């Protein structure tokens, strides 16, 4: 692919052919035996991915019965999110976007909070005090720049932590993707940027976003490592994220990891992909490249898994989720004052006036305020 014009000494064009890094083939067989992590870890990854999948399935059900708002599903991207967030320590920060529920619960977000968040309940918006998760960002791709800033703050305070941020392949077309990554790279700040290339930005296919074959080639332009990874191979994701995070932690600066995966589900629960892509394409990924199935097959080959364990695990997952749902269902009705709380630490008189208006409106409705 390299343009070796003999005239232009200094020209470049996609100088290296790239293949996504894999440890497990889609059928679960190791292709890089020597890189298999400790099997305890593999098992734990499997459990957490299964747990995430269960949540994603349940959220769809809750949405359909109007017990959840419009929700951005991650189903099919469990390896990509879980196996990467899994490498973090508690002191590390996740800077999430809307599709990162799996990464967030992996970093410790309580499922109950996730339910409340996607119900638009104030208690869901509150990030628990001990959790280093930044607010979910909807305006694409603010989180990338915030992550660079978190990394700057980590660096300045010598916290020994890392900021991990995610972005969709569509989001990489935004100017801020560039501005944020470049800033972090220029200052060697401890950030890791994961591009979850799930093939689609709502209805827009990957190829519309850019003329380049792989988006991690952008790393070349920042002087930082870029990794191309099979994003449905949990072990490849884990291994790469671990390297990138530890590199960042020791002061080697940021990396970009492109994880090739697929959004097998609609963009959000409100979307219908039939309008823009074939079911065949989707079904192929579901049938042959499911990240959870792949890991399970591997564990089965390794004799680390069987039906009994599966059944027990699923029961555990269900119990946990059911308890979380119950807790969420019992959350008090949102306090209407939440509309104005937290706008400012020192509210303006205008906000105080509006608070009085709000109180009056609530009272008129027979509310509590």
């Amino acid at each position: 692919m390299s343009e070796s014009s003999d005239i232009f000494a200094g020209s470049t064009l996609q100088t290296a052919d790239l293949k996504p890094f894999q440890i497990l083939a889609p059928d679960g067989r190791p292709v890089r035996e020597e890189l298999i992590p400790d099997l305890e870890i593999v098992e734990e990854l499997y459990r957490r991915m299964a747990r995430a999948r269960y949540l994603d399935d349940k959220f769809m059900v809750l949405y359909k019965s109007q017990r959840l708002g419009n929700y951005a599903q991650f189903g099919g991207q469990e390896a990509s999110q879980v196996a990467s967030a899994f490498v973090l320590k508690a002191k590390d920060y996740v800077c999430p976007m809307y599709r990162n529920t799996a990464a967030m619960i992996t970093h410790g977000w309580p499922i109950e909070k996730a339910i409340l968040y996607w119900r638009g309940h104030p208690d869901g918006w509150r990030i628990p005090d001990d959790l280093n998760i930044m607010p979910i960002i909807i305006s694409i791709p603010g989180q990338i720049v915030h992550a660079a800033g978190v990394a700057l703050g980590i660096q300045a305070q010598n916290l020994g932590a890392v900021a991990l941020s995610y972005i969709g392949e569509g989001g990489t077309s935004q100017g801020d993707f560039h501005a944020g990554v470049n800033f972090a790279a220029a200052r060697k700040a401890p950030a890791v940027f994961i591009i979850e290339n799930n093939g689609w930005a709502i209805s827009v296919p990957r190829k519309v976003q850019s003329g380049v074959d792989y988006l991690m080639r952008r790393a070349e332009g920042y002087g930082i490592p870029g990794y191309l990874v099979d994003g449905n191979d949990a072990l490849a994701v884990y291994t790469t994220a671990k390297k990138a995070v530890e590199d960042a932690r020791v002061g080697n600066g940021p990396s970009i990891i492109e994880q090739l995966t697929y959004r097998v589900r609609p963009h959000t629960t409100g979307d219908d992909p039939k309008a823009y892509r074939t079911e065949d394409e989707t079904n192929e990924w579901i049938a042959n490249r499911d990240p959870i199935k792949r890991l399970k097959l591997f564990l089965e080959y390794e004799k680390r898994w069987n039906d009994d364990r599966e059944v027990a695990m699923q029961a555990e997952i269900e119990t946990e989720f059911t308890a979380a749902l119950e807790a969420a269902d019992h959350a008090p009705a949102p306090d209407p004052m939440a509309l104005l709380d937290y706008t400012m630490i020192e509210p303006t008189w205008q906000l105080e006036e509006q608070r009085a208006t709000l109180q009056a409106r609530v009272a008129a409705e027979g509310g509590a305020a």
Partner: protein
Amino acid sequence: MTQVIDKPVGQQETRPMTMAAALTDAMDVALTRDPKVIMYGEDVGRLGGVYRITTGLQAKHGEARVFDSPLSEAAIMGTAIGAAAVGMRPVVEFQFGGFMMPAFDHIFSHVSRYRYRSRGRWKTPLVVRFPVGGGLGLLEQHADSPEAYLMHTPGIKIIYPSNPYDAKGLLLAAIESDDPVFCFETIKLYRDPKLRQDVPTGYYTVPLGKARIAREGTDVTIIAYGGMVQPAEAAAEAAAQANVSCEVIDLRSIVPLDIDTIINSVQKTGRAIVVHEAVRTGGVGAEIAALIQEKAFYSLEAPIERVTSFDTMPSPFNALNHFSRPEAHHIAEAIKKVLSA
């Protein structure tokens, strides 16, 4: 309820349309009439946009003229400027009004000044469309109403339709305008069945800068636009029960602003309320209040009231939306207030 004025005489064929359908139809007409019109934005091609307002246009007019762009509002806005300057008439879409901000440098620094900067050598006849407003329990950032940022930016026009007939006519006038125009489309109105009305299927325009008197009245003037016209009308209707006669003005466009219609009305009623969904401080309501007191000072019998959202993030808390976003009963309170002043 919605009265249509300015209907072109002799216009024959009509079809019942929602606001969404009327907007789609406007673009179809524009693409058909003028080969310089192109349309792009996120998801506008195959999908027809997340609200399906460009549905069918790519299939009918081809991928060269209606296409998906990379996900970058700055690129969408900035390239529309360049393309318009060299002869095209781009009609581009932002997916939501709140998502215009990555493009804001191109709005503040460029689209507003490109012609001025070249002293007329380059004009930028382009239209930017986007859904705005809340009340639908969507995610955060899917309910913003950023018109005041644009009103404070010289050199551009702003349309804000409240019904299908106006939507089509204003959008066609916008596409025809040689000045850049921003088109605010209230999500809540897109498919509101109450608004469905017979709209001419052919070409017509509704002139920019001519407000519509949605309801005549003598006691209070209520000035609204977009999604706030309906609650204003509802409040007026309710007030009528109590023998209070409200005039409801639907601005249709914020720039140009039909000051004559506003002032004539306030001179008659002596009392004014401005309603908008955007946050209060520094909003369009402030400008209109400032203008009214400037130009109808001696007619005013009460302070001008503003009914707006609170000065905070448009609520992502589904259950609480209705406490902040103006509703008919909030306007009713304002009516009481200006009457008791």
